[in-house]
């Protein structure tokens, strides 16, 4: 790793692990000469024109200023003007003093972090390159022509989101009752706001700085608020009328990744055809997430939005069986995006699971059939194995299908369960029995081949494993049997892209091998992402894969190449939480509580698949959005 020649990031307290800055390995071969941002500066090339970099940084800050608070609105204009004067040989020595003075004043008094984070990089840069600045003020500095820049505006929540949705932007617009503007911004990075607003696992909220004060913003709930208003027809979105392009792109799978890719290609005027094996859109979002969490009407609305942008979805068409990639190339599709998901079950590695017993069914199949309105398993007692959200969906769905004795079996403790805490709470409210520290060793059946019980072993927690969670260790001789009528393993899902893809782009785990940044595979016209590349993962990451895949496909269609550019490097860079970590505690007490939507009572909700959670009201949404601290962070780099 190349070390910066000057590094004031975090006040040199410690160098955060910025291994992503190992720029020699960066596929785009872009290198940054220097960056300046909220926590200081990093300079890899001391010959960088620091005066021009300052001017670029201040111009960017000025452009991001929102006009609300006086010091940022007016002060950034003054500063940008002074810095520009320096680069044009119009500077005076007192300008340097004035720049430093304004930097400190704006940082001390601005309303949000656009202004508040400005002093540190400005002062660090002016100090580290004081000779250059003095020369510029005297008019004796040679001005470098054509130094190029790239910049990125982010925030802890934005950086935490795989798709980098501009959270502070839309929250502020909700606060001002400008719902349409808010939604336009959401849709720039999230094509399924109604879905994400209901089922996202919210990486943004875990990094919300308000959480250090009282409670994190209800970002998911606010996105759903907008989606609800959109479905009510209360928004007037900015019309999208991209110039139509002749190229067509084929997409495998109408799940979140595929729909997302089609949506963003559609926004660029590119027509797409989506080949979907199932009879309806949504993929795992539709067939894996029960409708009490995500109503079908929401997915239908969002798929319709994708079709409105020029996508055609061909249902009941499985690529590899009904049509091949060669067929698609023959039909003139210039590129393919593979978003095939991870629809296959994984094995529990216990006896009896492959005997074809009646009432034994993998969780994904159980949920898919329940989603189609069937009651796939019979009996009163069911055992679900697993600790993730799919397991939660299975137990809660089983409860709604009439199972009266629903048991969840997990080999570690609740603390290690990957499922959403709210899901666990609501499952428990619905009367699900939790059995922790147990692992299944045999599915038992009666003489007719019907499931009769699940033999388990008790576990205890040992040393932490690679994931940092303590590894469960079996207790010898602790076998016992849970009597039950049905068993549902829900311990993970598998990919099966080898069925239709060339061997060169398939990994030993049957996943798609694609570049993490661009989604491009070894076969240049084949792109892909989502669960089929990562294994089962969170929904927003699949949407992000679709978005970035679309961006790369456009680049590929335009230039034949989709090498990531400097802006991609900047995004990758801010993906490192270490960049943000030294935020000081906020100097006042937290006194607000986050707004919570109302939920149906447990005894009501187990009667049907009606949606459990209601959305926020306009008053609640405005109140909640007002709690956002707007922790914007600006990063400007000289190339």
């Amino acid at each position, binding site marked *: 790793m190349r070390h910066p020649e000057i590094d004031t990031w975090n006040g040199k307290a410690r160098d955060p692990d910025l291994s992503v800055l190992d720029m020699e390995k960066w596929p785009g071969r872009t290198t940054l000469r220097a960056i300046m941002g909220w926590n200081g500066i990093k300079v890899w090339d001391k010959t960088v024109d620091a005066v021009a970099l300052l001017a670029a940084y201040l111009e960017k800050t000025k452009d991001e200023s929102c006009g609300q*608070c*006086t010091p940022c*609105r*007016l002060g950034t204009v003054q500063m940008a003007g002074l810095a520009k004067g320096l680069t044009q040989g119009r500077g005076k020595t007192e300008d340097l003093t004035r720049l430093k003075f304004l930097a400190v*004043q704006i940082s001390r*008094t601005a309303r949000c972090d656009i202004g508040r984070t400005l002093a540190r990089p400005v002062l660090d840069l002016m100090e580290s390159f004081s000779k250059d600045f003095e020369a510029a003020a005297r008019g004796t500095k040679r001005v470098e022509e054509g130094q190029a820049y790239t910049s990125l505006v982010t925030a802890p929540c934005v950086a935490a989101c795989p798709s980098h949705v501009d959270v502070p932007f839309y929250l502020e617009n909700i606060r001002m009752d400008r719902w349409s503007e808010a939604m336009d911004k959401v849709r720039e990075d999230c094509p399924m706001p109604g879905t994400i607003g209901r089922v996202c696992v919210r990486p943004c909220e875990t990094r919300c700085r308000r959480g250090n004060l009282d409670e994190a913003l209800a970002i998911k709930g606010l996105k759903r608020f907008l989606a609800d208003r959109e479905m009510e027809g209360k928004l007037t979105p900015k019309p999208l009328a991209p110039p139509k392009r002749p190229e067509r792109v084929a997409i495998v799978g109408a799940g979140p990744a595929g729909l997302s890719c089609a949506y963003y290609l559609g926004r660029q005027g590119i027509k797409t055809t989506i080949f979907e094996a199932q009879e309806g859109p949504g993929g795992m979002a539709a067939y894996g997430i029960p409708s009490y969490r995500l109503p079908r009407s929401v997915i239908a609305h969002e798929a319709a939005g994708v079709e409105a942008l020029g996508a055609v979805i061909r249902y009941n068409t499985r690529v590899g069986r009904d049509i091949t990639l060669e067929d698609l190339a023959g039909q003139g599709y210039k590129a393919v995006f593979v978003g095939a998901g991870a629809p296959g079950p994984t094995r529990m590695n216990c006896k009896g699971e492959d005997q074809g017993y009646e009432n034994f069914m993998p969780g994904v199949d159980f949920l898919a059939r329940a989603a189609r309105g069937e009651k796939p398993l019979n009996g009163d007692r069911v055992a679900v194995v697993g600790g993730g959200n799919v397991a939660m969906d299975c137990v809660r769905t089983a409860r709604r299908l009439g199972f009266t004795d629903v048991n969840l079996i997990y080999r570690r403790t609740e603390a290690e369960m990957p499922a959403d805490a709210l899901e666990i709470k609501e499952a428990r409210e619905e009367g699900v029995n939790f059995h922790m520290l147990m692992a299944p060793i045999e599915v038992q059946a009666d003489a007719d081949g019907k499931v009769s019980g699940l033999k388990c072993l008790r576990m205890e927690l040992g040393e932490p494993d690679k994931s940092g969670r303590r590894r469960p260790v079996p207790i010898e001789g602790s076998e016992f049997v849970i009597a039950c009528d049905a068993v549902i393993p829900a311990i993970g899902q598998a990919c099966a892209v080898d069925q239709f893809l060339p061997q060169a782009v398939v990994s030993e785990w049957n996943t798609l091998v694609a570049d993490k940044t661009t989604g491009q595979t070894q076969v240049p016209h084949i792109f892909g992402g989502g669960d089929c590349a990562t294994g089962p993962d969170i929904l927003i990451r699949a949407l992000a894969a679709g978005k970035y895949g679309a961006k790369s496909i456009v680049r590929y269609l335009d230039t034949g190449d989709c090498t990531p550019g400097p802006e991609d490097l900047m995004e990758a860079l801010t993906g490192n939480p270490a960049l943000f970590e030294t935020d000081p505690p906020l*100097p006042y007490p*937290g006194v607000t509580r986050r707004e919570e939507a109302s939920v149906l009572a447990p005894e009501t909700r187990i009667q049907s698949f009606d949606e459990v959670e209601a959305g926020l009201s306009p008053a609640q949404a405005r109140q909640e959005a007002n709690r956002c601290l707007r922790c914007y962070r600006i990063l400007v780099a000289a190339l």
Partner: protein
Amino acid sequence: MPILSINHNSLEFQPGMTILEVARKNNIHIPTLCHLAGCTPTGQCRICVVEVGGTDELLPACETPAGEGMKIMTHSPGVHEARKTIIEMLVASGAHNCLVMQSPADSWNSDQKGIMEQPWHGGLCPAYGDCRLQDLAVEYDVHVKEDHLAWEGHPLDDATPIIVRDFSRCILCGRCVQACNDVQVNLAITPPWGRRADHPEGWYPAADYEACTHCGECVQACPVGALFDRKSFGKALANEMDHIRTTCPYCGVGCQLLLHVKDGKILKVTGVEDGSPNKGRLCVKGRFGFDFIYSEERLTSPLIKENGEFRKASWDEALDLVAQKFTTIIQESGPDALAGVSCARSINEDSYQMQKLFRAVFKTNNIDHCART
């Protein structure tokens, strides 16, 4: 109760109070520009920033919650410098000429002369003497360099009959936005803020006249001379007017008015900020519908119509005529042939007498009030 200190004084406060509320309760003055009573603080102008021990940041008193043990300084040198810098920026951001109006005209620079040539800028600013920015500029001894002035290129909206919106004096405090959306709920002034790159034309709180009722709440909320009414423009300085509190005569709500009077003549009406029931709010009639009282066409004596022509009459003659005709109508057609409509502008006691007259004297229930229509 928890305790904090402001300027070394230990003060008790209720959890949930802001620093500004604690200060005001204890008569400690912290200046504000954008703070509008009764609305959620927006923290926009940053004039109310104070020093809180333990942080380099200055915090806005209006929206920062008071915390146990906080050590607050409201007028430290750092606070003074920050406020002065902000006021300087605000004065420099528009056509603010008031600070030079008393120096001789030949000493003015080209900016100042340029400002005087703008529409509505020929004389003193309509807020002169009653302007929070002017007060602060004087208090903090602010001087603005000529080359910092940005007075050109702001829009002017003087196309409607009552209110002038001169954005060259606007300091973007957002009070008019809140007055319109949160106080009156007319939703005629959309918050204009957003990334500068998305707002190349600037951020001006323009009014949407499809929704505007011309109530003038925004004018009353404006702390400077950006929003003003045409009627009082140029008629008097704030300190030349007497203030008389009265009750609005238009309808039965009883809003409290403050008449701004010079030489016995009402020039302007505002709502009484702390007076119930309206707490400063007024409608278009109460605020702007007052100049008819000086109309030459007002009736000054009763008139009786004879042969199609009105002639002046005395009160006795007119009332005798009415009494006689009423008596005849009642005798011929019964009391229900009469009906009374009491005027909403009457005081409560007069309206009571009116219904008594109809019910007890004329013996009819045909009595109503024009505010019901």
